[in-house]
């Protein structure tokens, strides 16, 4: 697979009327390939089991532009997700260029685990980075996702230095990353970098049947979504440190 063919991407879903992936009504394009292996991942198609199909950038763009009028009304646009979309710099840049050319709002959902040059390569074309922070402790992060935090955190800092619009998001996985110590470290990280907002994305189980249908088993099993009370506790802990919290889901 040529990751950086500027003409094509391997796409496993184009989801229209997405309203949880950035402002307004959006179309979210899901690209195959991810350096992480999170046990709670809701998109195992990204792992490359043959669920994606190659699409020409022009074809993706044509699909995205079908809802152009709804983006105009709602301030929405294109969200590129995955997997880790920034693995594929050239085609993603081409896709974002096409979207910006039509005046669409652009959003990239990233794990941060790519070379800094890939962020630099799309910086001028992205209106919003939705940047996942999964765990603050590097060994624990490696345990949970397969990669360390150093490059992720460096990229986050670099994006902020460049003045990029970054929304940090934290998947809240009960028992895995919602302990008080990690939440506190999360707040500290955000304060240190002057980014005083965090979007919590509570764990859900809607994806479990998808794994089964694909003949796979989810990495983590038997987890319950966080209770409202737990969610409120986490929110309170963050807010006490001065971090504004939103909850997506």
């Amino acid at each position, binding site marked *: 697979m040529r990751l950086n063919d500027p003409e094509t991407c391997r796409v496993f879903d184009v*989801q*229209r*009327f*997405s*309203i*949880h*992936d950035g402002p*307004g*009504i959006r179309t*979210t394009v899901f690209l195959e390939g991810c350096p992480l292996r999170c046990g709670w991942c*809701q998109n195992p198609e990204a792992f490359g089991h043959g669920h994606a199909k190659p699409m020409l950038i022009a074809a993706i763009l044509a699909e995205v532009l*079908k*809802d152009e*009028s*709804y983006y105009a*009304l*709602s301030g929405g646009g294109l969200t590129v*997700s995955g997997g880790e979309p920034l693995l594929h710099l050239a085609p993603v840049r081409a896709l974002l260029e096409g979207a910006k050319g039509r005046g669409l709002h652009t959003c990239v959902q990233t794990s941060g685990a790519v070379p800094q040059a890939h962020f630099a390569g799309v910086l001028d074309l992205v209106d919003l980075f939705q940047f996942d922070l999964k765990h603050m402790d590097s060994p624990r992060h490696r345990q949970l996702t397969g990669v360390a935090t150093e490059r992720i955190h460096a990229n986050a800092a670099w994006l902020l230095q460049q003045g990029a619009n970054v929304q940090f998001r934290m998947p809240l996985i009960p028992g895995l990353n919602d302990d008080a110590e990690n939440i506190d470290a999360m707040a500290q990280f955000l304060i240190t970098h002057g980014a005083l907002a965090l979007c919590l*994305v509570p764990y*859900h189980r*809607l994806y479990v049947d998808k794994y089964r249908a694909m003949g796979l088993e989810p990495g983590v099993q038997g987890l319950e979504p966080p209770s409202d009370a737990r969610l409120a506790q986490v929110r309170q802990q963050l807010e006490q440190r001065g971090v504004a919290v939103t909850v*997506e*889901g």
Partner: protein
Amino acid sequence: MSKLHAKNAAQKARLLNAEHWLCMERARFYTQAHRETEGQHPSLRAARALQCVFANMTVRIEPDELLVGNRSSHLIAPPIAPERGDFIFIFDHLMEELKAFGYRISESDERFLYDELIPYWSGKTVRDAKIAAFRAHGLVSQLSVRPGEIRRKLRSFGARSLWRLVVNGQQKRTVLASMTRLPRLLRALRGGAGDNIKGRGRCTDTQAHIVLGHKNVLRLGFSGIAAAARARQESAQTAEERAFLESVELSCQAMRDFSDRFAAAASAQAADTVDPERRAELDAIADACNRVPWLPPQTFAEALQALWFTQNAAIISYGAGSGITPGRVDQLLYPYFAADLASGALTRPHALRLLEEFIIKLNNNVIIWPNIGGVELNHLGSDVENITLGGVDAQGEDATNALTYLFIQAIANTNLATTASFRVSNKSPKSFVREVVAIHRETNSPAFLNDETAIAAMVRDGYAVEDAREYCLVGCVEPSGNGDTYGATGGSKIYFPTALDLVFNRGKTTFFGNQDGADTGDPAAMATFDDFLTAFYTQLDAMVGWVTDATNLRDAIWAERFHNPLISSTIDGCIANAKDMTAGGARYNFGAVGGGGLGTAVDSLAAIRAMVFDERAMTMGELRDALASNFRGHEALRQRVLAGPRFGNDIPAVDGLARDVVARFCAMVSSRATICGGHFKASLISYGLNVYEGALEPATPDGRGAGRPLSNSMSPSNGAERCGPTATLNSLTRIDHTHIGYGNSLNLRLPVGILRSDKGVESVAHLIRGYFDKGGFHLQFNAVDTATMRAAQARPEDYADLIVRVSGYSAYFTRLGHAIQEDIIGRTEFATCG
């Protein structure tokens, strides 16, 4: 916690728990007068019958109510109009089913029904005359086969699925009753006693479906209307004109006498009431009834009383199931509301209480029909009295007002299956759309209508633009003039898939087997898709011809025999023309032809084009054989067509077929004239009947099995939508909605829980605006999720007020039959990314 006023909560509870009765008062007194007026002019006969009904029927004042006007001897008992014939037919054939389903009738009423009413009306009803006329004009396709063959036919339709439909959700007793009565039902069918005409078309007994001229009643009172009729007498030219004008005066007087009876009853109750608060309320009711609707109202409370009383009386006059519509209630009542608020005579909480009660009353109606085929039509609010809110005024400016918002609140608080139509223009405040979307958090009622499209359609059909801007929604979603139109927006229908059936069988329908239409040639010999399409349109045009001919024959019977001077007196034009509405008195006149199963037909045409002609994946002969055997032994072929392109997925080539079919159908309909001087208008609405509609329709080339439901209204086939709501909306707007004069309906089920967040509400509002910017006419949402509905199926008692929309009106989910419940659940649920 309910925000409903405590007194209204009590009224709502009484309504939800009331027994459903069959009351013969309206039938008895109408018939009594009708017998005494043999030989008189039909307008006079109707007026005298109305006098007799209003003078003798039970007058009820319910506990806690501030607005009065009842229709029968029980809280829930629809007024029965025997002269139409539809009620007689139901009682003659389905009484056991009605009873098994919970309808009650008193012994004396039942004796009267069978000993006097049915014998008297036998041969005299609109239905009797209609069937005779249809036969005389060769419009009936009789089931001319032997009972043994019927069984064979039912089998070929997948009798099991059909039988499941009959059996579903019923007590064993009911099933047995149905079984023993099946031969009788089939005899009735064979005798052409149904509304069926050839080509599987339908033409019901009723017309009506009309927006009452409440504007004239509020402005003039019935005293003023009577005076206008008297003044018009001076220039009356003929005995006919004089008779009609006299009948208007008699009807107005009957309204006054009827209202006086309520005033007297309220006074009498007041005298017996100890509670000073209730006594004062009863005194106020008596005062109001002494004035309105005879005189023009002076206060908001009087205006609402006049409106409700007139609405109620009109429904008594026509009988239930008549689509009598209140119209733009926020516009009609606003001047009184504003004046009373300004003077301090009215508080907003009291206005809200009155509106809540009014909304509860609008839900006090049921269609009399047993549960057959797993379809229940008799839930509260099923005999819709659609109210229209919002939109622009006659000058084209936004007319949303404080009362519009108060109505929104009343509908949310009441949480009944209220049929409310919200007109949205490009001048509507954004907050208006958002607030109506947010009602879905409380109740599933609202429908959204696009002013720009509706007004353009009205103007296209001949309305002056000022009149077009005042349009109101009748029945489910049919736009009609505000008290100036005799529209008969419902009742006549054809099904697009039948045209396919007629092509495949060279002019015969599979079920009835008669040579209804022309032989358009052997489909297997058709060289191109265009040849097939030409044959399809030939059959469709013939079907439209039959149904419009039938409708005109029926309408002529009404014009000749059964007038309605009360309703006519409120409609612009009738007094000026000195003519009953049925005879062409109204300012604007139209007829209606509905088209059903568009999605099924379009998917079928798309499959034929793709599989037979483009890809040559099968021959027409193979397809025809597969259809004839209901895909038995052709499962591979069926799977291939099921995987084919479907309407509703933003595929221009498929959507283009839908656009062409709708445009051609609308042109066929509009080219036909009604007997009153107007033309027919098309609609694409299912009234929630698409399960019935599919029962006698054979297998279709889209892979749908014989007897399965058709697609509903203008929505894509169930399960066809795979690309989300924006794709569906894009598909729908490739059709020019301004051709569809009597409206279309799109039911979209929203993602689970989307309305929990403000972002979700905002996004739905943007969907509506986006759809309307592209020319969409109507949109409504089912925001109830599958899990909720499954739970409701398992424990109906816990979900008694769970409401869903079925094709243009609201229904109580747990009171729907199993088949419809499955149909709703089967509607595609769009996932969103979490």
